């Protein structure tokens, strides 16, 4: 465990360790509140925040804010006294550090580069993430859950968010920080980060697995077909299902928001799907085009 302790105690990584605990704690707390509220609600009792309870800014709010500000200030001062800024070597333009890691908040994106080509992982997916976040107010037509915690009333929204944020985003950051060493190779916590380590990972394109050159027209059409089928089925099947059972939200949502949400959702799920293909079947790309690869 020596190497692991060394890695988690690095000055750069203290914030990530803190973040892991804080995300876990707040997620847990939110769910606890939500479940409590849901059970209150089911018994027909009132819950915090549901009614219009207003308090003064001065003094109750300012007092709390001031004390919290003090605590944060003391915490940061203490931290900066005890831990020096984790500077590394002088920058050398002819020598990139190994591993060359992005800032911690982008490590999720960097980890995606293992599974997608740079154009997809570096440009398309980040753009879609931002567009998706912007789209939330327009596609979310569920008015419940404002000002109080609840799970029962927003199951899908909460589950999808938790999967996207906690599982994908945070987990990929944690992997990027603690499990990716020199050469962006996977290091278990008990392994020393060896700069001279060599790992052979032979990946092939999906169609090559069944003997069709992914760069041929046939390969292109098969790959493209698979991607199209993935999205088409992902959008049509749920639609038909909900249509059959006459789900209420579907009619209130409208067609365009449904397609948007559905596209974004399956794009998000494409990451774990591709991770599975890459890690288990050693698949490099499903679709190869001269401009980008998926």
């Amino acid at each position: 465990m020596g190497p692991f302790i060394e890695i988690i105690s690095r000055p750069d990584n203290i914030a990530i360790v803190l973040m892991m605990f804080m995300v876990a704690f707040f997620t847990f707390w939110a769910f606890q509140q939500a479940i409590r509220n849901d059970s209150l609600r089911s018994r027909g009792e009132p819950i915090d925040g549901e009614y219009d309870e207003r308090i003064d800014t001065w003094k109750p709010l300012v007092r709390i804010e001031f004390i919290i500000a003090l605590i944060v200030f003391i915490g940061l001062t203490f931290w900066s006294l005890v831990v020096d800024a984790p500077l590394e070597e002088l920058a050398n333009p002819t020598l990139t550090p190994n591993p060359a890691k992005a800032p911690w908040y982008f490590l999720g994106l960097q980890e995606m580069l293992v599974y997608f080509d740079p154009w997809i992982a570096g440009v398309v997916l980040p753009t879609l993430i931002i567009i998706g976040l912007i789209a939330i107010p327009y596609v979310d037509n569920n008015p419940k859950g404002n000002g109080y915690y609840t799970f029962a009333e927003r199951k899908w929204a909460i589950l999808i968010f938790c999967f996207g944020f906690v599982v994908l985003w945070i987990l990929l950051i944690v992997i990027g920080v603690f499990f990716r060493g020199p050469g962006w190779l996977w290091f278990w916590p008990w392994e020393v980060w060896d700069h001279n380590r060599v790992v052979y990972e032979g990946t092939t394109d999906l169609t090559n697995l069944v003997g069709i050159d992914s760069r041929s027209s046939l390969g292109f059409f098969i790959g493209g077909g698979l991607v199209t089928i993935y999205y088409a089925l992902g959008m049509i099947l749920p639609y038909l299902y909900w249509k059959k059972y006459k789900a209420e939200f579907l009619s209130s949502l409208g067609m365009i928001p449904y397609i948007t949400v559905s596209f974004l959702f399956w794009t998000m799920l494409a990451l774990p799907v591709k991770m599975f293909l890459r890690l288990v079947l050693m698949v490099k790309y499903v679709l190869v085009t001269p401009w980008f690869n998926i």
Partner: protein
Amino acid sequence: MKDRSSYTPFLFAFLSLLLLALTVWVIWKDEIQLRPWKEYQQEYKELKASKLQSEYDEAVTLFQSSGDAQKLEALKARLEEADRIFQSKEVQEKYKGLAAQKDIVEASLDQNQKQLQEKRGKFLQVEYLYIRDQREQDKKTMQALQKEIGGLTENRDALLEQKSSIGEKIGDLTKEREALLVEIESLHKGLDEKLAAIESNEHMSEGIKQVHISDADKADRCITCHIGIESTYRLTDSQPLTPHPARFVYLENHPVSDFGCTFCHRGQGRATTSPDKAHGWVHHWTEPMLEGRMTQASCISCHEDTEYLRGAEFLAEGSGLIKKYGCYGCHMIPGYEGLREIGPVLAEVGSKVNYSWAVNWLQDPKNYYEAARMPKFYFSKGEAESIADYLFSMTGTTRHDTLYTDEEIDWDLVEKGKAIWGQSRCNICHVTNGQGGAHAAVHAPDLSKVGSKVSKEWLFKWIKDPKKYFPETKMPRYRFSDEEISALVEYIIGEYQDFDFEPDYEETVPIKAESIEKGKMLVEKYGCFGCHKLKGMEDMQNIAPQLLRAGATVAGGESSEKIGAELSSIGSKPLELLDFGKMKGKIPHSRESYVQQKLRAPRSYRDDLRMPDFRFTEEELKPLSAVLLGFTDASRPLRFIVPGHTRLDQQENEFGSHPLAGVFSQLAEDVKCLNCHKIKGHGYDFAPDLTIAGSKLQESWIREFLDQPDVIRPMLKQMPRFNLGKQLGMIQGNLKPLEIETVVNYFRTELVSGDIPATLPELEEAPEADPVELGRQLYDEKGCVACHQIGSEGGTVGPNITNVGGRLTAGFIFKYLEDPRKFSSDNVDPDYGFSERERVYLTRYLMSLKKGTNNAEISETRSEQ
């Protein structure tokens, strides 16, 4: 909303106290913890203060005891007397009167000055108008003004005269007093300066001190702690306050203000918060400080020649080792390109050595003799046999050994051979049974067991003409007759046998073709052609990584472009690019230990490495690693660079060609004069430098010496007989009666110096006695006898000068006495600062010392008495 206000005051108070404590911590950390240099500076100040104080006290005591104090008292009394006189009513009246007069004169002078200025200004204005308008009226005004200016000037001169005469009179009154004041001050000056030094030390400002070298991009704050590094005071021996060691070599030539510290020592010059950080002993600082002798690695950055560089002896040792072991055979190293392969030519080795010997040698050269330079390649017996098969296949088709142990010995011939061996001074270069080898720089092989190694036929051919077998050999061609060579061969083979030698192939065995092929592959894989010339492999490339550095170019060939990538400069190669492989965790994780381990056990990092094991001792590892660590890609300002002479010379003449010319050069090449002598910077330091031999030596002496080398050097440094002259029975075919003439002519025409006069200068005054006798007196007076021998009397530090008058020219002796170090910086003769007259006498005396002359005999008889 619950009301939490009941405990907020306590929380607030607690947090405030915490914040206060943190603030105190911040101040403590910033002022004390992160400024460890404060303590050093204070300590230095105290040490210096006590040193200055004690110096001052000493000076005061000296002042008291030397009588200066009494003198001061007397002067003060006289000053008082002078004061009293000056203050007396009579003098004061006179003084005041004069002063008043002076004031008046000065006031008039002021007035006069103002008027002059006014008139001149007006004059210029009118002159301008006159030039513009050409009006007569203006011209008149100009003339009038000119006249006035003339009058005023006269007036001023008169006033000035008046003023100086008054000044003189005043001076008469105060002169004595002022003279006394000056005297008192000069008497007290030394003490005052010391007091001022104490004062200024007390007011020395504390703070971070920095040297900024803008063109080297260095800002070194080392002197913040090493505050006394440039001081001539040695206040303490402990770091960081002690001065720089050997500052006369290092700091005198590289002042801190011009070079900083980290340029040579590396380390993190900007860090001031802890010694570890400043010295670069922290994880992310890639250039940890170099200490002690390892610092010399940095000399290579700027000095292209480090071989004779004072203060870089450690480095010179390292580059000597690179040359000795021929590292440049496999690695491309700037500054070492174009040097000869260190191993012998292997073209005809099959007819030279025994097969069993070759196999044994290939497995481990040190089996044969301990000082072997060839490294161990860890060949198995099978591999060694394959290589031997490949080499033997170039001249024959069989594995064979030839032994002479059972042969009848011709003792007469052996005796004759032994005499020739001694006369030819073979032992100067060759070691036999642990003896000889004084001239180690030529790396002649140890001959103790040569009888079991080589064949007589080969040895005969070799001695007769070494260059025929090995064109670049250092072995001279002795002009022996065939008969003499036979005798010598008989002696060598008979005398130097290896009785442990076990031949396996006394019966010849044919060589198998597969084995030859396998041997060739091994030769190519391990790059034997790096050190040995091999047929068909002349164009093979260096097999090992290049050891380049920034800005260095490799002369010749395709790789002449500049190489700046740091990957090739081992001295600054990033640590993570060094593959510690199997040694990871077993040796310190630093560049220095990596390099040293590579040299210590070249194949210890991985299994398939090819570098052979040179069996370097720990004493050899360190200088070698210093050289390697010096190969960095660090940029340095052009003004620091000291170009190398060797390189410039190499560029001028193609390497290997002679600095000598004409017939003499062929002769010198034949007998290898430059193996021992140095001429115009080429050759070795073993025997005297001959660059100015033509001016230094008398012609007749050169002739005689070449005929029969005389005893002026101790045994094993004596010049061998090359049989150049006719008297010694030259070989018929090689007989060149003009050879001595050639040498003498070359010396007289080429190896001369314009500084050395042909004759002694004439003295203006005739000497009061016989100059030779005066010279002899000087010789005795100055104690020359302590080092030099005349006859058998005197010391042996300097050369024996019994026959100096028959050997050296008068001009040379005369010039040499003026400044012995002029001719070679290593001469130890003291500089007596002789006058020209003295030098003439001494030269006359020395010139009178000739073998068989009266003077020498006199000294001999003297010593006998």
